[in-house]
């Protein structure tokens, strides 16, 4: 070929630079680790999750055991084993908060994952394929939007009976709708970009283009939405539980604990503050992590 000089001044270090391929994911991971807020968020989040999972096994009191000697709300005391005190029924607050975290995080994670998988798939396919498929999928989404959540849950219960798992299903079934709309919108703008056309000209199939070009480009926005969805799901769960459609006493969740605590705010603020602190910390961490993920997935951000 002709001898066009490679234009950038070739720093020696650059030539020595590693020539093996790097993927977006490796780069993203590297960039994520460089983001202090996101790393702190990840660490605290893992700590909370770990505590919620194994904590209840290590505590002297179980979440549903009533300490008959301390039936009224007890302040934190080491001797009794109630490290953060008890609630008005004499149940250990720390045990309940950790157990509640287990439920809340599980609901948040499972329902959001379901929403993520369904929403992204439907949104990307509808947006990219367009035409009939798009019409069909999006009309279905509109239809689902118009069904009130409680009504939907009640119908599910009538059909399947009372079941803990139904709640995940119900919440997941609602949350993916917004995700699908967001992803579809993003995909529509991406679809007309020249690099997508270039991918088609290079022989990429539809599935191939969605996976290799559309998804990596919508992921940043999706990540932000995911971190917004998790808290939403956690609150939704407490709402359902409050209506008696979710989990039942003596099982608990952060949402329920906060609900109960709010009722006793004046007599016994601890019962509100402790679960609320856990939940707020979690939400903050999620936000930092979400921002970090979005930035990490954008190569333009260094």
């Amino acid at each position: 070929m002709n001898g066009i000089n490679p234009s950038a001044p070739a720093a020696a270090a650059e030539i020595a630079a590693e020539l093996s391929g790097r993927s977006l994911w490796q780069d993203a991971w590297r960039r994520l680790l460089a983001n202090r807020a996101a790393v702190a968020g990840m660490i605290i989040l893992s700590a909370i999750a770990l505590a919620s999972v194994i904590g209840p096994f290590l505590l002297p009191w179980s979440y549903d055991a009533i300490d008959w000697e301390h039936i009224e709300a007890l302040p934190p005391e080491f001797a009794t084993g109630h490290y953060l005190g008890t609630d008005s029924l004499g149940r250990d607050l720390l045990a309940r908060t950790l157990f509640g975290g287990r439920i809340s995080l599980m609901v948040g994670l499972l329902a959001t994952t379901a929403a993520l998988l369904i929403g992204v798939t439907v949104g990307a396919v509808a947006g990219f394929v367009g035409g009939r498929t798009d019409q069909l999928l999006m009309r279905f989404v509109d239809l689902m939007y118009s069904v009130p959540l409680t009504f939907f849950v009640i119908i599910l219960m009538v059909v399947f009976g009372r079941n803990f798992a139904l709640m995940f299903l119900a919440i997941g079934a609602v949350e993916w709708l917004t995700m699908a709309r967001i992803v579809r919108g993003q995909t529509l703008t991406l679809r007309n970009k020249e690099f997508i056309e270039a991918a088609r000209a290079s022989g990429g199939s539809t599935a191939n283009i969605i996976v290799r070009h559309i998804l990596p480009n919508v992921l940043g926005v999706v990540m932000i939405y995911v971190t917004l969805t998790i808290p939403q799901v956690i609150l939704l769960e407490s709402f359902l539980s409050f209506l008696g459609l979710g989990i039942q006493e003596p099982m608990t969740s952060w949402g329920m604990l906060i609900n109960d605590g709010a009722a006793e705010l004046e007599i016994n603020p601890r019962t509100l503050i402790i679960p609320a602190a856990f939940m707020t910390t979690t939400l903050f961490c999620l936000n930092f992590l979400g921002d970090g993920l979005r930035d990490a997935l954008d190569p333009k951000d260094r």
Partner: protein
Amino acid sequence: MTSPLLQVRDLKVHFQVRAGGIFFGTYLPLKAVDGLSFDLSAGETLGIVGESGCGKSTLGRAILQLLPATSGTVAWLGKDLTALDRAELKAHRRHMQIVFQDPLASLDPRMTAGDIIAEPLRNFETGLSSAAIKAKVREMMEQVGLLPSMVNRYPHEFSGGQCQRIGIARAMILKPKLVVCDEPVSALDVSIRAQVINLLMDFQRALNISMLFISHDLSVVRHISRRVMVLYLGRVMELADRDAIYGKPRHPYTQALILAVPIPDPDKERAKPRVLVAGDLPSPLDPPSGCVFRTRCPRATEICARAVPVLESAGVGHEVACHHWRD
């Protein structure tokens, strides 16, 4: 001349465009490409010129089946591409590539240069090991004048000219037989433009590529093409060998176009007769009757409004669509 690789016959691409009110809008056909026919033989470069909106890009995309044709045929080695199903089309895609105008927009911002260049290989040479792919990408990068150490960079870390080299590397890595270049140098600076033009011409000669070179820059087209097709509102005005188009243009539009191009030579430029084409391009939704150029043509007569001029032969391989080309 060898037998044509590509035969385009009466190709039409019409878009349905909404017109009128918010509620009772109707759809009007926008005839972006309206009945084009031409041949392209192996190793030949056909320049396609015309003003903005005359359907150049639409034509290029329709030939590569990136846009559906409304009617007409695009025959590749005798086989009509418009009639193929997806799998058959994919098999043909490896021989046909495109280079885009906007160097940055045509590269996926979340992919590294190496991945972008390797993409056609991954689609078509599924048997290749990743080491072999890497080697080929490396070789390609050297050929287009990029340092192989840049494989891991993302598009935004390159200059416009370098991005266009990546785009060219991607297009050439499968050694295609047909390449559509849609204004590949329009976004580049003068000094970079010359480098990229030379690069494209080198590939074209080395691989004996048939090339459709789309541009609104008549000087660049003169430099790179063997034949030139002049479009106006989706129709062919004139099609001829390069020297005939530039030396003896027959169509009033071609003549006006050539006269309007500024020449970087003050003596020649100032000595040029100053004939201006009057007016603006008509709306493609409502093209003039008869000859589409008649609203701006200095030679238009009554017949031009009545009858659509057909392509007539004005010499060997020279076709003109004008009622008055002989005058």
